[in-house]
């Protein structure tokens, strides 16, 4: 570590400056700095959209998510806790944690799970990734879901860590019917005007359990991320 000081002094000279690189780019393009640009290609939603609001979104979402290897359950609000309980039981989960969002708290999830004898970890007590390694399951709501691809969108914020949908071997996602958007286009339109620090540092579009086909093309789930993803679509909330 003797080079530490030296390297911090050197830091500004590492690589090239932005202007140098941009200069090379402009030279290749034959463009001048600040030169106006042509309009970007228009993304016609009618072309790009592969699912529309007219469709039965729950059915489409269920079909596509199931095809990717996630399990989808359609449940009534009253039945939600029981369903989560039985998934956890089947997965032999003992230590679990829940995201802090409108949904889990609205249904009193933490207390209900404790009453079932599960250890509910307060993952927020210790910031960082570490606390999440010992969990058997992570339970989250979602920021949106996409019918066309069967995708869950889990973003980071104060109540949602990156790790809950990634680190434990089981991920349980609670999706309200109203969370389901027809197509990815609709999600990007929703976040269109948000940029920079106002965006979450992590938006994870999740389409299936963690998978690999690296060994002889044989599909294996649960490589690094969760091998099981259970989705509870709550019909009315």
């Amino acid at each position, binding site marked *: *570590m003797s*080079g*530490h000081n030296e*390297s911090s002094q050197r830091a500004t000279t*590492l*690589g090239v400056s*932005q202007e140098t*690189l*941009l200069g*090379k*780019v402009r*030279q*290749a*393009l034959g463009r001048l*700095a600040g030169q106006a640009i*042509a309009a*970007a*290609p228009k*993304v016609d939603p009618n*072309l790009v959209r592969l699912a529309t609001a007219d469709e039965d979104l729950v059915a489409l979402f269920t079909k596509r998510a199931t095809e*990717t290897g996630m399990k989808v359950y359609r449940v009534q609000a009253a039945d939600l806790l029981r369903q989560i309980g039985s998934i956890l039981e089947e997965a032999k989960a003992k230590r679990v944690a829940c995201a802090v969002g409108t949904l889990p708290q609205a249904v009193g999830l933490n207390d209900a799970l404790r009453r079932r004898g599960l250890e509910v970890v307060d993952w927020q007590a210790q*910031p*960082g*990734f*570490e606390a999440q390694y010992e969990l058997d399951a992570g339970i989250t709501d979602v920021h949106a879901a996409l019918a*066309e691809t*069967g995708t869950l969108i889990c973003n*980071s*914020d104060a109540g949602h*860590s*990156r790790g809950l949908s*990634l680190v434990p071997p089981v991920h349980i996602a609670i999706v309200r019917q109203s969370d389901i958007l027809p197509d*990815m*286009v609709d999600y*990007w339109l929703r*976040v*269109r005007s948000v*940029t*920079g*620090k106002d*965006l*979450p*540092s*992590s*938006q994870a*579009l999740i*389409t*299936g359990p*963690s*998978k*690999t*086909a*690296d*060994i*002889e*093309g044989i599909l*294996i789930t649960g*490589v*690094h*991320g969760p091998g099981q993803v259970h989705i509870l679509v709550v019909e009315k909330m």
Partner: protein
Amino acid sequence: MSTFEAKNQASAPAGTHATVNLSISGQELLFPPLPYDIHARADAATANKQLQDFVHVATYRKDVTRKQVTSETFGPKHGAFRDLGAAIKQHTLDHLDHYLEMFVERATAAGAKVHFAQTADQANDICLDVARRCGAKLCVKSKSMVTEETHLLPQLQAMGVETVETDLGEFILQLDHDAPSHIVTPMIHKDRRAVARAFERELGAVYTEDPQQLTGIARAYLREKYRRADLGISGGNFLVAETGSLVICTNEGNGRFCTSAPKVHVAFVGIEKLVPSYEHLGVMLKLLARTSTGQPLTVYTHVITGPRRPQEHDGPGQLHIILVDNGRTEILKKETREMLRCIRCGACLNACPVYRKIGGHAYGAVYSGPIGALITPLFRGLANYPDLPNASSLCGACFEACPVKIDIPRFLVQLRSEMVSRKITKLSDRLFYRLWAWSLGRSWTYRIGGWMQKMFFRAKARQRGTLAKGDPYRSRGWLDHLPGPAAGWTSQRDMPTPPARSFRQWWNQERSSS
């Protein structure tokens, strides 16, 4: 090498996890002595039954899946989708300075530190500097073609940072001192037995050929690495100018681990990866996974905008994005710009009959297959890779597969043309083709040429007794040996001779009067 091992061992916590010798000898496959001649590796590959069984079968299957899935998903819109994908990338490249500037501004506003590297060494130096400053000892890395280009790993290892590939395929390759042979499925050339042997030898695991168990061994090993890693390195599939976001598409989840668990994240991204906005990103994502693996989206499409926010629970405190040129501004010139549209979906590799036969290592470079045959000579010198533009039958399967419609066959011909004009093409070939062209340039020389060819072939066939009698417009003979360079033909198959009479003779006899 022994010093790396010593360092690696020293950094392993006593009694916990074994640290293995992570050699980089396999990298020589991607960085052979130059100029590179394809024949030795290509010929060995075509004779290698295992490679034929794995690569040929797997790529063919992927190609069939791609066709099925894209036609089911996009239906009659497929053409318009590809046009749009191509237009988005082309537009971004045409105004790359503008979008780079926007990206840097937005990413910086979101808290990322953006660096600029013109060369591979500069890119590596930036990363090494970050590693040094954060006192990194253990680095977890997800798949990145750019770091293969810059040959980053040996340098990190040399400075004592144990660096582990975490993509299952790349991890196995690293353990087995091998190198990736496909841009999407890097260990397509290996079978489970090779994995089993590597795990037994390098990790001390119990020998098993069960892919599920093998995956489990890797999972457990790599989890420990994630827990202890203080540096995460990734590539990037897209950069979004409007929001300053970095997008990483993976299936296993290692990409999310590497970019979330360690306190510092460094991303190596080529400057061609930009798209203007999320809307445009959406189009590219829809094309990418369906073309690449037939999935609707990769399992994890991770959109990263800046480092962890103060209110957020986890994620790296520092995000460094290294924008890498390393030859790209050369390709950005008008004549070759279109090649930079590539989104590395791998569809052209899967569709390519030549790739299917010779596998990725035969290309002797980081990028293989049809797109590799184009960009490798541009990155590393046409004279250094004279075979790559030529080892193609120009069948056009790649162009048909490409989601951003890169006209690969046309560019292969363009490179061949450059080889001729720069006299990289052999003198004997230049003379031969020019003489041939001359003889085709007037009908009397053409006729004499055709007649001589016929007489020569038929005389040889007669000598060998293979010349059939009968219909003068149909009966022919066969040659099993041709002289000179044409011996290449007869080394594999027989050569038919022309029949006794040509079409022209028939026409002149039967028709010319009428």
